[in-house]
């Protein structure tokens, strides 16, 4: 019995086919599992392991290395406030403190209703609009406490759902073609050419 939906399983299979080695699809597959469950659940990790040919422990051991992969449930909206150097100079600490007050959780925590998880992040590469805030890895460009309050209210009301999908949905654009080249055939052709040139 598959934990991932049939549609997602198909996407996983298409992704695996893009890589010379299956294991390369491990992280993209983890993103797809997060899209379904909102986080990287145990049954999903077991299924990914089987698909890419590693043990479930290897999936977990890899996933826990990366900040974006959550092995525990998180909120529908993961709000990340950057406090790294450029944002620090622009009041990142103060904005994070305001977010903690507004949501009633400390950084790292999830609101009781499960709508928001607040994270203090490292640099998100948008330092000219500082402090930088992302929701579900989408730049929202709210740099003041007032703007952040407005954003949280809009998210709660569902007004930004089109622009900011629920947590886990990362890439909404599907690849439209599979591989068109056959690396093995190309390698064989090159080897033959070289042999010809050498002979």
């Amino acid at each position, binding site marked *: 019995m598959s934990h991932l939906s049939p549609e997602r399983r198909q996407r996983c299979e298409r992704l695996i086919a893009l890589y010379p080695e299956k294991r390369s699809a491990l992280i993209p597959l983890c993103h797809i599992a997060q899209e379904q469950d909102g986080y990287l659940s145990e049954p999903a990790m077991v299924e990914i392991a089987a698909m890419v040919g590693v043990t479930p422990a290897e999936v977990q051991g890899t996933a826990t290395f990366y900040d974006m992969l959550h092995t525990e449930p998180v909120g529908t909206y993961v709000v990340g406030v950057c406090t790294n150097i450029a944002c620090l100079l622009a009041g990142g600490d103060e904005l994070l403190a305001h977010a903690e007050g507004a949501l009633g959780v400390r950084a790292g925590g999830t609101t009781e209703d499960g709508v928001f998880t607040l994270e203090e992040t490292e640099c998100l590469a948008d330092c*000219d609009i500082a402090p930088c805030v992302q929701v579900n890895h989408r730049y929202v460009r709210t740099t003041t406490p007032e703007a952040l309050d407005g954003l949280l209210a809009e998210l709660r009301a569902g007004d930004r759902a089109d622009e900011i999908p629920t947590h886990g949905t990362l890439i909404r654009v599907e690849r439209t*073609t599979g591989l068109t080249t056959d690396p093995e055939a190309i390698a064989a052709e090159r080897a033959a050419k070289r042999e010809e040139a050498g002979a």
Partner: protein
Amino acid sequence: MSLTDAPRIVTARTGFDDSYTIDRFLATGGFDGLRKALTMTPAEVCEQVDAASLLGRGGAGFPAGRKWSMLRKSDVSYLVINGDESEPATFKDHLLVEGDPHQLVEGVVIASYALQVSQAFIFLRGEFALGLERVQTAVNNAYAAGALGQNIFGSGFSLDIVVHPGAGAYICGEETSLLESLEGKRGFPRIKPPFFPAAIGLYGEPTVVNNVETVSNLPWIVLNGGAAFAALGEGRSTGTRLFALSGHVRNPGVYELEMVKHSFRDLIFSPTLGGGVPSGTGVKAVIPGGVSAPWFYEEHLDLPLGQDEVAEAGSMLGSGSIVVMDETTCMVKAAWRITRFFSRESCGQCTPCREGSGWLERILFRLENGQGRREDLDLLLDLCDNIAPGLAWPPQQTTICVLGPSIPSSIHSSISRFRDEYLQHVTEGRCPHA
């Protein structure tokens, strides 16, 4: 010094609202560089890149042409684009990935043709959700236009590009860590030698890893010739470069400037660029090339923005990101925050980096919060010395990768220059800026 009228090479389209669309791309010379490249031999394309003297734009500044020439001959080899952009205060590739994804794809096809690889990967940091969508769209468009896939534009050359999302780890910007991550593993940098993935890279095969900005220059270089590129800038620093300016300036942003022809002062104070320091106070310190770089001060502001010029002055142009800190900034807090970043992002393989970064962070934290001791300053420097012996620049290394020896930069810089400010935290028992 006035601004030069050098052309905008990589940001020519980003002024348009629809710069990321295939329509804008095709209406503004899109794929012209690729079409021309395909009429040349791969060796001729490499010659143009050599003639351009294009230095890698990721941070190390290694000549791209030389990196290409090191690719070991093999039946299978790969090109991997490093779009992990995570060096704090670096946000130039962000602009290119979201603003001109087709130019990036065109550059990747040109590089792949020059290197004769049939599979390329574009690795983008996972936090670039919009960028991932735009680059995937650009790849889809390129396939539909015949610029990707089999027999590209009838040339007989075939290539597939796979867009690969990261999952949040600074260390994956280190090229061997990136390859590990692309293989579906933890982002642990690989032991050197081999120093270059061109010998042993992805899946053990020869691999070239190039930065997003580096390959985005290729369509222009092919169209206009390497000599035209090399005519811009001075010495080894040719062409234009993206500078990401942030911190205490009126107009933070990404500026494409001719290399060497402008100074830090131009970038920070010119009304058409940074616009000066809003508080009206002076510049207390400048980070010239990402937080791994030793700091600069007022007396360095007239240095030109060139790779060798900055290196000779004891720092690095690195990722081209420049952070301005005005007189109101607490140097202890700045150093602490940067050190905490390294502590959080250390992959954990090497003891000096893993343990050292944590110790340094905790000592800086107690100093910043008024709990420090006088002898903490020497303790900090001693720990830094254990990570990068001699505290020289470029640093000595006790670790597998350069993350470790990057840690001392902000600490060594701030203590050397602002020892009194550190001591003030100790004697007053609090941060004087709080």
